[in-house]
């Protein structure tokens, strides 16, 4: 990309020494994005925005919060009652975490649907999986900080999982706790790590975007960018489209923050932690429920932990488990069906995770857990071999621009080279 000519001398002076203006121009303004990205492509930038919201509100909350077993719950109430707009900061942070996960899960499933993990985007995908792990760690430790009953017991249950590791498990748990029970030492280090992880996240997000901009975005057709006719500059087209998505996301977030601030939370977390009183149901936040269901589906403790970790770690090898050469589900009629069944499977797992492990929930949980892994280990490898995919379009611009192709965007490639321009159909009402 040619270095843009900057209008102001001071900008030229700085840019010559540190090319931040050229860099910004290259990545946020001129960045050539496929011209056919749909609204499912909004969720990457929305996730980035939520990370900023979490860091800003989190830094402010940390100014008023005290990470000590005797003061954590009280200081949280102090934020809610005495700090100016403290209730808004805390509700934004708590519901923002849920919004962040909603956005990230849609982002991941968009990747599943359009095959965004396939070559040459494997490392981009790995970085995304690392981001998910970091987010989960961060969310879990953040949930412990208010030191309510669910904070305490979730911390107890989850940290105890490590004791399943043979030989070193017990030692590892003691080391993690900094003592012989979940207590002040653990609260302190969780606070420290909860503050650290988001900045590590920022670093991995930077690499994620670097890898993305190096090999460019995937698109709903799943075919490569072949010429500059296939792309449009990121700004103004996708900046304005992302702004629109941002407005809608913030509207949803505001409904929760201002009208249903505790809908997604657990009521008993408004009771201060008490190591002597075990709550009847210990459940994680909604965004962990499917993993929790997988954990409990395995009758063996160590096996459950391995299955739970594997349910996410398997994503690292997804680019090789999916043997199909075609990226987008638009051209994969069978995969499209299995994709939606997989979505349903994950939702049922979440539902099972929210319920006590008794009766038919155990059976449903086991079937869905097995299916979860079968999707990756059996269905995807076989589909690539046996699925009859639809023919791919020649190029993005031929498929999406009515003036460029005698066909519509159904993905059937034109028989002739598109130099014979058909009469331009009216393009109103279509974007």
């Amino acid at each position, binding site marked *: 990309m040619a270095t843009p000519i900057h209008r102001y001398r001071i900008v030229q002076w700085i840019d010559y020494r540190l090319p931040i203006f050229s860099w910004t121009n290259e990545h946020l303004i001129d960045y050539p994005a496929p011209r056919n990205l749909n609204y499912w492509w909004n969720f990457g930038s929305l996730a980035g925005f939520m990370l900023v919201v979490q860091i800003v509100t989190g830094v402010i909350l940390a100014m008023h919060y005290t990470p000590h077993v005797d003061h954590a719950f009280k200081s949280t109430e102090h934020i809610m009652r005495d700090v100016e707009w403290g209730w808004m900061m805390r509700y934004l942070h708590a519901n923002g975490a849920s919004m962040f996960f909603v956005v990230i899960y849609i982002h991941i499933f968009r990747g599943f649907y359009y095959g965004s993990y396939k070559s040459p985007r494997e490392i981009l995908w790995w970085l995304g999986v690392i981001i998910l792990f970091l987010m989960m760690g961060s969310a879990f430790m953040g949930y412990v900080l208010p030191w309510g009953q669910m904070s305490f017991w979730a911390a107890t249950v989850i940290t105890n999982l490590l004791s399943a590791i043979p030989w070193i498990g017990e030692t590892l748990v003691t080391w993690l706790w900094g003592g012989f029970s979940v207590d002040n030492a653990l609260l302190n280090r969780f606070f420290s790590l909860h503050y650290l992880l988001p900045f590590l996240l920022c670093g991995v997000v930077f690499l994620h975007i670097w890898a993305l901009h190096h090999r460019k975005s995937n698109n709903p057709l799943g075919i490569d960018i072949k010429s500059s006719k296939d792309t449009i500059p990121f700004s103004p087209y996708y900046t*304005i489209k992302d702004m629109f998505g941002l407005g809608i996301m913030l509207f949803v977030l505001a409904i929760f923050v201002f009208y249903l601030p505790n809908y997604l939370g657990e009521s008993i977390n408004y009771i201060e932690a008490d190591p002597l009183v075990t709550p009847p149901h210990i459940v994680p936040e909604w965004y962990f429920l499917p993993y929790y269901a997988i954990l409990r589906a395995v009758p063996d403790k160590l096996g459950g932990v391995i299955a739970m970790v594997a349910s996410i770690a398997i994503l690292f090898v997804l680019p090789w488990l999916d043997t199909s050469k075609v990226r987008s589900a638009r051209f994969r009629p069978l995969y499209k069906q299995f994709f939606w069944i997989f979505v349903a499977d994950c939702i049922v797992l979440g539902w099972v995770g929210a319920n006590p492990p008794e009766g038919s929930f155990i059976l449903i949980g086991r079937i869905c857990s097995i299916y979860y892994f079968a999707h990756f280990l059996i269905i995807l490898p076989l589909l690539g071999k046996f699925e009859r995919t639809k023919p791919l379009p020649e190029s993005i611009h031929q498929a999406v621009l009515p003036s460029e192709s005698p066909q519509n965007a159904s993905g059937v490639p034109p028989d002739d080279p598109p130099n014979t321009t058909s009469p331009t159909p009216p393009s109103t009402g279509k974007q």
Partner: protein
Amino acid sequence: MRYTIILVAILFGLTLVTISDADAAGDALEPPDHEWSHTGVFGTFDRAELQRGFQVFQEVCASCHSLNYIAFRNLIEIGFSEDQVKAIASEYEVEDGPDGEGEMFMRSARPSDYFPAPFANSQAARSANGGSLPPDLSLMVKARDGGLDYLYGILVGYEEEPPDGFELAEGMSYNHYFPGHQIAMPEPLYEDAVEYSDGTEASIDQLAHDVSVFLAWTAEPELEIRKQTGLKVLIFLAVFTALIYIIKRRVWAKLH
């Protein structure tokens, strides 16, 4: 394809319903659906109800329950004047110190003090209440599934005699809405338990209603400002998003 999407949507709906109901399960009855003035989108607390509820708390609940997160100064928010708050505070004694000789001493409370708890510690509270610990009430409405309706249900849900065949343990009471029906708190409210200064008839329903509203406020003192701010934020976002959408269409129109 379409059927799969419909299936997914149904499952998703079911999941939402089950998740929100999951904790309400148990053998207790669904709490009564009571009318409140502050629960809607535009809802605000009724100041008269709040002040009456405070009176019920003071004269009935406070003999066993603490209210640790509320200071006397907070009462200004429920419509008391500064002088009234000073007068209310001065009726209470709090411990202060140490003084010049290193001794702790008692003095009358100031608006900046928090409500003194009825018992010095949880052991004292248990020993005075047959082994049960009366919980702090500040966050009660947020700390129980069912919230406000549940709390109201507990207060009006007492039965003098348990149904036939129900084994009630020594010192326990029977309550419709309490999980397991066996509650350690004896029926706290009775007709004319307090004498309302505004002449409102102090029926059990009225007492329960007023004190529930008061505890809704102690749990969520930010409720009114939160909803008012929320309305402004939503209106702003709706206009902003609509404008962005118009601009977006104009910008993209150039592409075709």
